[in-house]
């Protein structure tokens, strides 16, 4: 940590780092810190406030010597979130959303932190604590009170790698030798490299499945320079933790993928946008980057190729799901609010700082590195004939073996359920809350583009889980993670939440379901980005796929009344005041 002067940002792109530095130094961002940033960047203070208030890990009030972020995702809820939450409040004396009287502990809820295979989990000063229960919370807080450092007592996070395809089919989880892919780079021209990537049929693993070769080609053709390679390591979709494991187990593979992309498109700058939830992984990535510099796989004349220079640095996020959307991520990297941009340009044309940028997911870069190492033919021999390759799934919820599964595209839901030993599945949420809701009638469907495309999250719920609780958790998530820019997403999620509360009370009529269908469709038609478009997708699917369940929530005695209104409750406050 430097002196106050060193903390001042010189460029807008340094704003997030600078805010982090202030917060790390003082525990929160003070008025004078905002003023300093505003002065240094020549921006008004309200604009700085606008940026920092967008990210939920930035605090404008003291957030405690120990800041505890407990995950409130649906998996955490299923695994005992409420009990753990109570335990934290009891042991620290603080209530969630605030500090204890001594200001030692700050308790906050946060969305999925990428530890769904070991929930309930929390971050304390951004160090992971997993498989929490009442006793464990008691012991953690006792140790912290006695002066323990969270860095020393945090949990070792296991990768839980459960399944890899047979030897000649595995792509990601197979022996890795640093530089194996880059060694081959000099045999290729940028054109022939893109050709090889295209031939291997790799597509974007974040869930959009845009052909990677085509994306790189589009960027390569752009005349503007410099160009950038951005690695999206902001996997925020609840239930996803595959990138966490890939970065922990194979950080070098990801770096190689980025370097290859740089070579292909003619870029010398790589940026990893790492979600703040994975701050604890950063030392590992820093080490891998250092090692690459030492091995001359980064820096000048990379891998012995004259004139090919490439550098990589890490940009830490600050807590925002929507920043996983590529244009929102670019805004965030530029030190702005992480609002998705309008769709006027692809990032390959105008991306980071308005310059051509390739944005790919961690997994996609790894696939690209393997494509070079193993050859496109190897790829074409795996997966489904129509959709070759493998996919890393993050499996969580009601199964005996939650963890990471590398499966071939084309594997059926049923096979996956058997692998992870889900004994009593009732429904599956694929690709997270913004993905698809799958009933047991559909377990023969195949996980692949064209049938069930999947971004990586695979959450299993048994019969004892209440579907409406799950949908309400998702809606709350979207409501608070919406960037707030467009009307249908900002207001729509709020409105849908009110309706679900009504249904949960058992006071809904079938017309309420019709309303939800209509409103969901409007949100899908009109929202500005994928978040709002997908926000009601699972809910609408659930309404169609589980009609019996929802019909059980309907009150058929309509009587022309809106029964949600409860007169006794409505006059309770008045009676309290007058008695």
């Amino acid at each position, binding site marked *: 940590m430097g002196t106050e002067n060193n903390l001042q940002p010189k460029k807008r792109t340094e704003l997030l780092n600078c805010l982090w530095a202030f917060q790390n130094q003082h525990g929160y961002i003070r008025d004078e810190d905002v003023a300093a940033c505003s002065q240094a960047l020549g921006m008004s203070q309200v604009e700085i406030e606008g940026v920092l208030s967008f990210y939920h890990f930035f605090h404008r009030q003291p957030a405690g010597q120990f800041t505890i972020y407990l995950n409130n995702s649906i998996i955490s809820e299923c695994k005992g979130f409420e009990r753990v939450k109570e335990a934290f409040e009891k042991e620290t004396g603080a209530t969630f959303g605030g500090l204890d009287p001594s200001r030692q502990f700050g308790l906050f809820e946060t969305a999925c932190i990428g530890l769904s295979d070991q929930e309930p989990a929390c971050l304390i000063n951004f160090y992971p604590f997993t498989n929490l229960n009442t006793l464990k919370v008691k012991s953690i807080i006792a140790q912290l009170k006695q002066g323990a450092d969270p860095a020393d007592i945090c949990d070792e996070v296991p990768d839980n790698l459960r399944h890899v395809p047979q030897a000649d089919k595995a792509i990601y989880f197979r022996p890795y030798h640093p530089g194996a892919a880059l060694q081959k780079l000099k045999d290729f021209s940028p054109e022939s490299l893109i050709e090889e990537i295209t031939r291997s049929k790799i597509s974007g693993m974040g869930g959009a499945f845009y052909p990677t070769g085509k994306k790189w080609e589009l960027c390569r053709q752009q005349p503007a320079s410099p160009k950038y390679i951005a690695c999206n390591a902001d996997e925020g979709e609840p239930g996803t933790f595959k990138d966490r494991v890939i970065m922990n187990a194979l950080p070098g593979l990801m770096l190689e993928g980025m370097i290859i992309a740089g070579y292909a498109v003619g870029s010398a700058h790589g940026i990893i946008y790492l979600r703040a939830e994975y701050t604890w992984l950063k030392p590992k990535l820093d080490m891998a980057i250092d090692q690459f510099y030492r091995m001359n796989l980064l820096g000048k004349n990379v891998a012995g190729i004259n004139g090919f220079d490439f550098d990589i640095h890490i940009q830490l996020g600050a807590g925002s799901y929507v920043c996983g959307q590529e244009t929102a991520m670019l805004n965030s990297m530029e030190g702005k609010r992480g609002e998705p941009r309008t769709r006027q340009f692809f990032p390959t044309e105008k991306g980071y700082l308005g310059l051509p940028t390739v944005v790919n997911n961690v997994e996609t870069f790894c696939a690209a590195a393997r494509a070079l190492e193993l050859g496109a033919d190897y790829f074409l021999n795996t997966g489904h004939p129509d959709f070759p390759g493998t996919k890393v799934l993050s499996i969580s919820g009601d199964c005996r073996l939650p963890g990471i599964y590398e499966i071939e595209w084309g594997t059926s839901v049923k096979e996956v359920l058997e692998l992870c030993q889900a004994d009593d599945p009732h429904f599956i949420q694929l690709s997270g809350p913004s993905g698809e809701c799958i009933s047991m009638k559909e377990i023969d469907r195949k996980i692949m583009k064209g049938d069930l495309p999947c971004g990586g999250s695979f959450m299993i719920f048994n019969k004892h889980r209440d579907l409406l609780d799950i949908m309400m958790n998702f809606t709350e998530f979207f409501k608070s993670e919406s960037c707030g820019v467009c009307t249908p997403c900002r*207001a729509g999620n709020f409105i849908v939440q009110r309706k679900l509360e009504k249904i949960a009370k058992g006071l809904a009529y079938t017309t309420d379901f019709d*309303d939800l269908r209509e409103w969901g469709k*409007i949100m899908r038609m009109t929202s500005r980005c994928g978040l709002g478009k997908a926000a009601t997708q699972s809910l609408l699917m659930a309404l169609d796929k589980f009609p019996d369940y929802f019909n059980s929530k309907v009150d058929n005695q309509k009587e022309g009344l809106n029964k949600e209104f409860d007169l006794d409750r409505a006059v309770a406050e008045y009676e309290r005041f007058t008695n």
Partner: protein
Amino acid sequence: MTKKITITIDGQKIETEEGRNLVTVAQEKGIFIPSLCYYEHIDPPLGTCRVCTCNINGRPGPACMAKTAEGMEVEVYKPELENTRKAIVEMMFSEGNHFCPACEKSGNCDLQHMGYEMGVAHSRFPHLFKDRLIDFNPKRMVIEHNRCVKCRRCVEEVLTDDKKQVFSFQNRGNETVVGIDYVQEAKLSEAQALAAMNICPTGAILVRGKSMAKPFGDRRFDMTSVRKEEPKIFAQMTKGNDSFEKKTIATISLAGCFGCHMSMLDIDLGLLDLIELVDFDKSPLNDIKEFSKNCDIGLIEGGCCNSENIEVLREFRKKCDLLVTVGECAIWGGLPAMRNTIPLGECLEEAYLNCLTCETGEYIIPHGEELPKILDKVYACNEIVEIDYHIPGCPPTANHIWKAVKNLLWGEQFSILYSEFKYD
């Protein structure tokens, strides 16, 4: 030299130049595409409000973001699209706290204008009544967060002479608000401040002492639609049968000011004809206190602010075949609902305990068995019972009320003029 191209809007071929903004091109040809955040010289367009959603080459998207290109096919007036756009406007009304009769910008407000053009009589969504600030801190302005629709015009457009932002979005999700920088605001000239007020599509940015513009009737959106053909509002409101037997009407004023009842009387001599066609049962107009029979139609003025309102409204639902809310208060709470963002306790204390006009020794909150109990907030009538139709206005004009009632009772075809459809 820009390329000449042809695009199609709702089947109509239009010659224009390539790369122009679709909303502007349509407007020039007399085709109205509703829009709110769109402001011609902000480029790239903001695309925040989504009110201009159309089908562009078969896919739904905002027209303000579309640039004309050869062969572009645009659908604007398709029932599904009209319904969608209307829903977005209704969402804005539900999300903010828009009390038109008490707003300085009423009559000059783009949001209200969109409501008129689309015939938004009520919002299909529940009003959220989120507690929002009115910020009196800026030197020259007052920021009314209740009315802000987050269009972002001010964020992009209002800059100081040294190019610093005066406004910026704060927070995110449903907590998003537009923040104002007091230091920068103080640097704005009077003309710059007025420009800020004028680009605000609603009454969220007000300049002190400059907010009231023109009297009712002369304001920008009071009298005429911007569309070539005036929108036909309420034409769909046909329910009654065609036999002209005598019908029975009941009316009531709940948490309202009786203004809507006064408006009903405004049909003047028309009342004499009406008496031939209808009987009035329970109504303040004839002072009949109890229902004597079932009625064909019940007209409700005012929302529900106390337990008696609830009982009466439920009785109306039982006794009337059709229930119609008349006026803003009945439809969604209206002016009395201004208290909905304030806890009831504070309202009661302010009104009965801390009030300047309280007489010494009279510091009690009235209560007793004979008095109705005050509800935690003011409820819209459709939160309590099912409502069949809504007639907006504060108050609705006499013409509007009776055209709608006649239509409901006898299925008489009619339409409401643009100038008769008002929220204030």
